[in-house]
């Protein structure tokens, strides 16, 4: 039984890392949203498994939030927003997919080396969970750096946050997990509303230098 617990937890956490890789190379917004919805569903499964194996019923709430809010509400509303903003046909110039994937592999290797060594004394379930979680976080950061569109940046941020939830639920008995996941959901709701209200299309630092000068208020 102990082995099964570990294996299923591994499978789901590893699945989350795989989903993060899939997010990296999506160049259309709709498919990006679909993969993110799947990302959130895998997270919900993983959290639910932790709730079951740790015998911690309050984690089911976190799983429910992940499934309902991040798996359904956010993708659907972003879907609509993309349509309204008229950017659904846009194809993003992702910085060379091959390079991004290589960087991603490097980051995963880095997090394995760091976490497996740092958490050597922790129990194996928590240790490997942390290593996977750090991979998801770093891949989310990588996605935020390589994307220019505000919607895909937000998706990068949400996948990063999924990694945090994975880490928090893997830390056995951690208090405030539900509260923190609610706080994060509020944060994300703010971001999504922000995009919609202000029609932000591009990320904050565009490569257009004239826009930068105007924005910095430094032009004479």
């Amino acid at each position, binding site marked *: 039984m102990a082995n099964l617990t570990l294996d299923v937890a591994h499978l789901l956490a590893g699945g989350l890392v795989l989903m993060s890789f899939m997010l990296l190379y999506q160049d259309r917004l709709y498919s990006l949203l679909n993969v993110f919805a799947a990302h959130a569903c895998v997270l919900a499964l993983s959290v639910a498994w932790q709730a079951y194996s740790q015998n911690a019923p309050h984690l089911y709430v976190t799983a429910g939030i992940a499934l309902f809010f991040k798996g359904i509400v956010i993708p659907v509303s972003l879907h609509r927003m993309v349509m309204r903003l008229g950017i659904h046909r846009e194809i993003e110039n992702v910085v060379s997919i091959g390079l991004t994937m290589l960087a991603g592999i490097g980051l995963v290797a880095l997090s394995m080396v*760091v*976490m497996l*060594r*740092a*958490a*050597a*004394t*922790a129990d194996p379930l*928590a240790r490997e969970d*942390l290593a996977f*979680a*750090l991979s998801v*976080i770093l891949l989310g*950061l990588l996605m*935020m750096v390589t994307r220019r569109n*505000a919607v895909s*940046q937000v998706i990068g*941020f949400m996948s*990063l*946050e999924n990694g*945090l939830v994975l*880490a*928090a639920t893997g*830390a*056995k*008995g*951690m*208090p*405030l997990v539900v*509260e*923190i996941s609610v*706080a994060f959901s509020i*944060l994300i709701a*703010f*971001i999504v509303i*922000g995009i919609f209200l*202000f029609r*932000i299309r591009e*990320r*904050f*630092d565009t490569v257009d230098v004239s826009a930068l000068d*105007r*924005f*910095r*208020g*430094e*032009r*004479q």
Partner: protein
Amino acid sequence: MMLPFDPAAAVLVIPIVASALLAFLPGYRLSARVNMLASFITLASALLLFNERPERGEFLFVDDLNIVFIVLNTFVSFSASVFSATYIAHEIEIQRLKLPYVRFYHAMYQLMMFGMNLALVANNIGLMWVAIELATLTTVLMVGIYRTHEAIEAAWKYFILGSVGIALALFGTILVYMAARPVVGEGFEGMIWTTLIANVAKFDPALLNVAFVFLLLGYGTKVGLAPLHAWLPDAHAEGPTPISAVLSGLLLNVALYAILRFKIMLAGNSGAIAPGTLMVSMGLGSLLFAGFMLYQRRDIKRLFAYSSIEHMGIITFAFGMGGPLANFAGLLHMVMHSLTKSAIFFTVGHIAQVKGTQKIADIRGLTVTHPVLGWGLVLGVVAIVGMPPLGIFMTEFLIVTSTFAREPGLAVLLVVGLLIAFGALFGKLGSLAFGEPAGSLAPVEASYAPMFTHLAIVLVAGIYLPAPLVEWFQHVAGQLG
């Protein structure tokens, strides 16, 4: 003396009640007064903390370290609320802000105070994280309040970078819990400061090291340390000036407080890395970077925002060096910087309003056209660059001398950074304050009291510090390790 209420709870309850009240109060004059009154009562209850300290609870605690931050926080927020009343009145007059936004602004102001005070009194690393997130969110909303393209971009940038920062800080927090769990057991105990500090010697050092790196990067983003500072100048320049003052004077300190707490924790574990080295290099990097960046600024609020990065770098450097003297100087420098920088922003706010621009090139000869504001700015800049006999001179002198005694090489770099910033700020001040007047000559309706009170405190502190205050700061510096 027994009080009928708990002052630690009061510094939280008053802002939150005031925030709810201000959300519904119509009319700007009334809400500005309520805002001032609420900030004043919060300050009064913060001062009561000296007299009566509440018991350490599961959620809240007050000790010698955070009491300094709380009093500074409530004091500057009170004087900023006085300044804000005049400032906002002018913004309404020129129709830059509409009345519903003003109501929103006042409600957010108090909510931000609640967030910052909660982060300071929290005895729980999770609660502190939530409080800092709340304070960040409210300031994001206030930075974007003018609804101009630039303001929204600044708010968005602040939002995304701030969110990434607090996400990294949360990962660090989780790692701290993981390190604590085998020792103190599962559940709430693993997140309580006082329990963590008491048991830290038995934690796994490797896990603590990784945790500290994430915490330093995460909360360091909020402190504005280079290279994570990108949000700071924009957020300062595009938001209302009272918020720039509060951001520079207070929110950066709150994030620094979080880093300090974790530094104390790491110091208790003999196997962990010395966190000082990381802090020294980030602090020195910020100082040098901001020093050079100061020369290229053309916007007056951005100029002083970079100066804030510079000073947060100095403070982080001092705390990174550690030891009683450097900690003492760092703590005092933080207080002096908060007071001086918010006074400068109060002055700059009025200057930008009367001149109708924030461009340095369009503001000239202030001492001729608006003598009080002009000389106020001169005094503020003289204070912030560390000229004797003002307070910042004394603290910078202490930091430099204590560094010279231990690491002469670092001290040279520190002095170089200080001189670079000195040259930049004085160069800009020359054209701002003196020379042929340019721009509007209209008389200004300003509230001088907050800025001159701050500058007077800085001046007096530079000449004479009361012995009990010195003892108090020395005692706290000793705790910082």
